[in-house]
């Protein structure tokens, strides 16, 4: 009985945690980038202030927009939040973690992207179509690589459910597995592409012709824009949590370890996530954004790495049988 209470409680905490922490993580990245460029940068809590400001503003909707334009932000936000709650952060085996395995999580983000690209085309401007078209292209290359990484890990752990994979990887002895290293590199590249980060897309650009994600949300304002911003922040947290729980799972608690273990695991999780955000900031400052058609080659590398990792893990499994 207590186990069930713990798991519901843990699930609730995780749901609220990812929502609360998302603007702060993006704030960390922005602060790191600004400081490295010798600017003072926005304060850490600016993300929250921006969201509240946007929520209170009036929405201006184009004459030619349809109901899809107005409904999409809510759908995109809900899908991103759901995906973020399904990924284990500080505890595995939470109450609703069985409703979707890792393939479902990837597909939920696909649904969010579907609505986002449709919303970009809704108003009938050239920039919206451009953003949607480029985003679709990036998705066609990022998704197979992501799925190969997922397949690789699911084959290693004999399960496609994230808590089971995380538990399996925690109990493995620390070994230098090239296949896992390749999977990690591939997943990082896919995460950069999906979150519209440099070198795939510049989240801070003001030049419309260099935009991918920003171009799709050009017409949004007010509470709609707040929801979409929150959704992209949640997506970043989700990918960070995914990478952490798969490749840096040490210290993660299980659902019935009790509040003390949870607290330790929570602190570790927030620490790892902040570290990831700082690394992201460092990376974005050190590298330039690529031309749109070179993004294809970049994501092709992710695919190659993922496939190589898969081949090598088959080889290892065959040899050590």
């Amino acid at each position, binding site marked *: 009985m207590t186990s069930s209470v713990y798991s519901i409680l843990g699930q609730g905490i995780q749901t609220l945690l990812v929502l609360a922490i998302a603007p702060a993580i993006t704030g960390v990245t922005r602060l790191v980038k600004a400081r490295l460029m010798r600017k003072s940068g926005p304060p850490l809590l600016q993300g929250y202030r921006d969201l509240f400001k946007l929520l209170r503003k009036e929405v201006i909707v184009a004459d030619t927009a349809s109901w899809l334009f107005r409904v999409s932000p809510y759908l995109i936000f809900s899908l991103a939040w759901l995906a973020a709650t399904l990924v284990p952060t500080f505890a595995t085996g939470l109450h609703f973690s069985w409703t979707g395995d890792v393939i479902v999580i990837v597909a939920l983000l696909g649904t969010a992207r579907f609505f986002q690209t449709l919303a970009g085309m809704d108003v009938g401007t050239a920039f919206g179509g451009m953003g949607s078209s480029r985003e679709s292209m990036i998705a066609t290359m990022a998704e197979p690589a992501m799925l190969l990484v997922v397949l690789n890990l699911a084959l290693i752990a004999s399960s496609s459910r994230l808590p089971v994979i995380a538990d399996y990887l925690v109990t493995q002895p620390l070994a*230098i597995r090239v296949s896992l290293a*390749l999977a990690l590199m591939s997943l990082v590249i896919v995460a950069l592409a999906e979150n519209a980060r440099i070198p795939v897309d510049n989240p801070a650009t003001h030049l419309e012709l260099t935009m991918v994600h920003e171009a799709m949300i050009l017409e949004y304002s007010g509470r709609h824009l707040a929801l979409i911003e929150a959704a992209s922040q949640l997506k970043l947290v989700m990918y960070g949590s995914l990478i952490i729980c798969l490749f840096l799972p040490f210290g993660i608690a299980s659902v019935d370890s009790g509040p003390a273990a949870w607290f330790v695991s929570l602190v570790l999780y927030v620490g790892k996530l902040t570290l990831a955000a700082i690394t992201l900031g460092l990376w974005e400052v050190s590298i330039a954004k690529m031309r749109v058609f070179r993004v*294809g080659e970049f994501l092709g590398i992710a695919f190659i790495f993922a*496939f190589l990792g898969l081949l090598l893990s088959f080889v290892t499994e065959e*040899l050590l049988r």
Partner: protein
Amino acid sequence: MNEAYDVSHFLAGLMLVVSFALIYQDRLLAVLRTFAIQAIVLALAVAWQALVQDRPNLFITAGLALGLKGIVIPLALHRMIFRLGIHRDVEQVVGVGLTMLFGLALTALSLMLVLKATASAPAVAREVLAIALAIILLGFLMMITRRNAVTQIIGFMSIENGLILGATGARGMPLVVEISVAFSVLIALFVFAVFVFRIRERFDTVDVEVLERVRGDRT
């Protein structure tokens, strides 16, 4: 045993990834640098094999790989490239994407082939052989899909690296053979360099497609 397998698996896998990176590069100087990295990784892998198999003469092989292929040959080619004035992009016959897909297929083929054919050998040897065959095939692929004579030389050298990896993995080879192979590589490089200079002087280019057209038996 497991530690031996783990490190050798890591180094062999790293060499495979570097071979893929070699195909991906499109700037001549980057190709040289990647080749040097491949040679260094090869030296490390051979040194580890020397430790594990307890054969000190393999250390000499590792040293030769590091010295010759990791330092001397890249430096020499570097100088040659600057003297030829061709430190610019490499043109490719087939697009990068398709080349990489071929490379993947070749890797899968060699893995399946070697693992099937060597069912009775120890695990370390099987894996190193499989990856060595993949590196050899990737080197061939690199020679086929390039138009610049210098990168074709590097492709040839990377085939040789793959051969050395395979030979040391499968219980090593005699020191005499290794030294003679190394010398022949050095001579071959020398001859290559002389010819390339001559070709450049004569025809003002080292692009093999252009050279094809001025062959004697073709009008």
